[in-house]
């Protein structure tokens, strides 16, 4: 996919590029408002990551322009502001999702995938990974033709794993994806281990092996 990253903090911008490039996305960058306006206007992107607090302008204005010109990119706003009003304003103006800094790159990845699915850009509702088939609209999972019943969190977990396949995900990232701010209710992340184990049990013998434990409390979903 072609992704434009509009972010004036260069280090952050580059970290995002590094991460997304691993999945084979083509990443372009804009480091200020004018560059962002220019590029988003001139080229077509599947996804645009838009920072609201640019030094020389507001990302929201770029958003407005994009919507006025009926551009079909999926737009995700990233911002240092956790205020609800900004969030609502962005979504009202037509953004597809909103993330506040600091965020996990794996989380960003999930959101990008979700937006892509919704916008039907390669956006099937069905995601396949070998014998596992996930239908994101009906939230059902079929393994080798057999429906398996997952709890809501287990479904979210599996989807998160597959979306970020071959990536190392720490327990912390997983907990935050599943429970957001409440992730600190867990005294320790052993609870995650229990959760993952439950998921493993529900997959086939082969499927369970996809979820690998990496040393130091991380997990990777991979078939290699």
């Amino acid at each position, binding site marked *: 996919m072609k992704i434009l990253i509009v972010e004036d903090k260069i*280090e952050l911008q580059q970290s995002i590029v590094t991460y997304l490039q691993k999945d084979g996305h083509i990443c372009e960058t804009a480091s200020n408002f004018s560059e962002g306006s220019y590029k988003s206007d001139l080229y077509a992107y599947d996804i645009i990551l838009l920072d609201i607090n640019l030094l020389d302008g507001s990302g929201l204005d770029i958003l407005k322009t994009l919507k006025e010109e009926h551009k079909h990119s999926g737009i995700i706003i990233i911002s240092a502001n956790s205020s609800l*009003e900004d969030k609502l304003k962005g979504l009202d103006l037509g953004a597809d999702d909103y993330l506040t800094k600091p965020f996990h790159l794996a989380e960003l990845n999930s959101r990008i995938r979700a937006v892509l699915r919704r916008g039907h850009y390669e956006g099937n509702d069905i995601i396949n990974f070998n014998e596992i088939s996930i239908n994101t609209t009906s939230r059902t999972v079929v393994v080798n033709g057999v429906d398996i019943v997952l709890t809501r969190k287990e479904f979210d977990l599996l989807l998160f794993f597959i979306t970020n396949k071959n990536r190392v995900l720490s327990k912390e990232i997983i907990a935050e994806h599943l429970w957001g701010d*409440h992730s600190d209710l*867990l005294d320790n992340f052993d609870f995650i281990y229990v959760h993952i184990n439950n998921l493993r049990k529900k997959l086939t013998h082969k499927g369970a092996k996809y979820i690998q434990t990496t040393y130091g409390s991380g997990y990777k979903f991979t078939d290699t």
Partner: protein
Amino acid sequence: MSLSKKISQKQLLFGLAIVLGSLTILYFLTRAYIVAEAKESLYHTNFRIEQQLVQQKEVTSLFPLFEIHQVEHLHPDTLKDTIIFDVLQNENELFKELNVYKTINTKNYHIITRTLMVEYDDTLLTILITFGVIIILVYLTQFIYNKNLNRTIWTPFFKNIETLKAFSIRSEQAIQLEASDISEFSELNIEIEALTSKLSTDYHNLKQFTENLSHEVQTPLAIIQAKIENLIDGSKDLEQDHLKTLYDIQDNTKRLSKLNKSLILLTRIDNQQFHDVEAISVNTIIEELLENLKDIWNHKKLEINFSSRSETRILMDRSLADILFSNLIGNAIKYTNANGNITIATTSDSFKISNNGDNKITGSDQLFHRFYKENRQSKSLGLGLAIVKKICDYYNFELTYTYSNNIHEFEIQF
């Protein structure tokens, strides 16, 4: 006591003292003068009589004014007060009497001269009364005049006190004080204006600084997190314990980030940046929360009872409502030991959550303070309850904590 009253009180007391004092002095001075005058008059009459006698003229007595007697022996002169029945007044009266013994033309004479004191006394009394009345009148007029004067002079000052009371540092406007042509009041006004202006500026600067600081902090944090994540992701090149270290760094970055977000929230509420209100269904929020956290409390084998007597609706900002209940319920889940029990009850105007716990909280008066942690080793930030308290204060909800029979209970009255 008010300024006016105090001044009046002091003035009246002083006035009273002056009046009494001056009347007393007047009395004694006038009396002394009168007595001296009486004496002089007696000596004068006596002298006239002596002169007549020297000239061999006959002097007849006129009782009780003067008497002339021839006597054998001389005695010392005396001056004294006597009481004599006065036919004219038809009663006993006080007289001053001068007795002089003198040899005139080889005869011994006893000359007695008297004068009626009552006239003098009446005069004294009249003088005193007149003086008393005049001085009291003068004083009262002065007093009333002063009172009115005070009132007009001090009015701008009192108005300014009211203005000061109503003033808030948070307001964008400078304080408006009533001007006065009295230099001290003018000076006071200038100083107050300067002081409040400085306070306001400092406050707004601090506010701005805190907001900017928090926002600035988020960017480096975001960069740290992103870089760590990329590092972990390339972990086939990493040593095992390096990986572990990276996870630890990630944990702590998360903590910092949460701390920062919480502080931003607290300052935002302080700055009253939450204007939106909606009708929030408390029951819905609680149900959603419990559902969302189901795995967690099931894992701890907690028993949660939620009962509501009626639909509870409150008016507040939605995100604050989420945070409020999330913090309280989250705390209960976090701090109740496994197999414990949590009870949540709502009525139309209250919310109560209780959980069992063996240990009384020792710092219960500090419970809602920022950064207070009952267990100092705990990884928690200590801001959760401070945020709850701030939200409650913002909407004037009453928040209480009690501990009895091994049960911790938090209650909010809406």
